């Protein structure tokens, strides 16, 4: 029986950048456990002989020409920004490294 413990839920929430407090963890973890048990019913149903489907129809090779299209104006691009400086998006100090 697959399990998704409260700790695991906290870890996943961290990966997904959602800050769940204790009350939320208490509430969501058991719900997730129930859902997971239900969806886990598919495990092992289809063997290696069944290919996975990522798209319903086998379309391939959709390309566009390397031609410039109109952009947004900087005002449009920055319109929803919580903070702007020097025509750029202001973001709080970043802790992690670039990949």
């Amino acid at each position, binding site marked *: 029986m697959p399990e998704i413990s409260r700790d695991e839920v906290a870890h996943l929430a961290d990966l*997904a950048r959602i800050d*769940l407090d204790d009350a939320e963890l208490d509430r969501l973890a058991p719900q997730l456990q129930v*859902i997971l048990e239900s*969806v886990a019913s598919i495990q092992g*149903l289809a063997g290696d002989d*069944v290919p996975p*489907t990522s798209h319903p129809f086998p379309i391939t090779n959709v390309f566009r020409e390397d031609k410039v299209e109109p952009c947004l104006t900087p005002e449009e691009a920055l319109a929803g920004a*919580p903070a702007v400086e020097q025509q750029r*998006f202001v973001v*709080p100090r970043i802790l992690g490294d670039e990949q």
Partner: protein
Amino acid sequence: MTDLTRKTAAELADLLAAGEITSVQLTQAHLDRIAAVDGGDRGVHAFLHVDADGALAAARESDERRAAGQPRHPLDGVPVAVKDVLTTRGLPTTCGSRILAGWLPPYDATVVAKLKAAGLPILGKTNMDEFAMGSSTEHSAYGPTRNPWDLDRIPGGSGGGSAAAVAAFEAPLAIGTDTGGSIRQPGAVTGTVGVKPTYGSVSRYGLVALANSLDQAGPVTRTVLDAALLHELIGGHDPKDSTSVTDPVTGLADAARQGASGDLTGLKVGVVAELAGEGWQDGVMTRFREAVDLLVKLGAEVVEVSCPTFVHAMAAYYLILPAEASSNLAKFDAMRYGLRVSPEGVAAPSAEEVMKATRDAGFGDEVKRRIILGTYALSSGYYDAYYGQAQKIRTLIIRDFQKAYESADVLISPTAPTTAFRLGEKLDDPLAMYLNDLATIPANLAGVPGISVPAGLAEEDGLPVGLQILAPALADDRLYRVGAAAEAVLTERWGGPLLSKAPTLEATL
């Protein structure tokens, strides 16, 4: 003047063409109706945003075009409502979420651009479950929409707003989106028509993605012909959408008119064994069986088909959707647009902390559940067992459909297992909520088109029941032929449209 809001879009198009009404009159009539029944504690609350100025301006332009003898389209001047998951330039697009409160997109979705290009005034944006995750519109961050048949009941979801708007005569046409039934199921529980087109036949550019491989935009209307007209307008290849099919979207209105003549001789109708049984409401099954009998009377041949993998469709869906959604919703991080919330009691929060606090405050429970589940399903070590396996189930479901379509031209089932349940009834039980999509999910997984048409009212509660018709990919015309046939014969039996039996809504303000 007869109540314009009671007319079908096709009728309104004729009246506009004949010069008997103007688009301004028409649009104003609907704005008045919205004002009368949508707001307040007991209002329908189908709309999150009403754009009176914009709609009337568009209506005036439409009238000018008609006066000059240059309408852009038969539906030019007929107002439409748009589910708040499609971007509308300059109009708030919230996806029913707090995280996008007040967001004004700088661009129109292709579907919206097509509506505007054809001259349809856009009345406003309709309510929905947050990011289209839900079957009742109760997960909207802005409060639920009420079912016009019974204001204490759900209108279905995630597109409850569009369906309720049309059912409450607030709009003759609406656009919805369907990922697992979000157009069809609200259609069933509100006594309206809802269509999920073949995957890829309507552009997804500007449709805020929930599950990219499942989402489709489609028409929400009161009649099958109206749906066909709207479907033809919004369908077609879009170079901005790489998953868009190149086959033209035509012949649907013709199929609807042909179907309305009531002759289904030679048509093979497959009843799916797995889409019935325990857990399905008695009244729903009764109306469904009657509908099947009616189709036979019209000349159709009914066959039993079995799609054994359908019993696993829900599990596969609730793995694929959260996986894709968890990635799609990562962009909502307070850096470029939308809500920004700082964590409490932190002096100089980092970007990571602001992201976490924002997403916690901005997303509701259902969204959080699915993001976490999706993150889990995609994790290394779990990918093969969950997401990978779900994609294989998908292959089996596609094969089940292919096999079924060898012996039937269309497949039918009840659209949903129950009629509209009460607001709040299933909120604490996510799994119970998910079961509403049992019959609709397989079509999304396979990419095949489906329609829900009203099948009558259930005996035990007097609430609408929907008949679902499914066709092979790119055979959307069959939906309209069979749907129109059923609609014609049922309407005659009822002595008028089903919606005329709905309770009159009191003006709420």
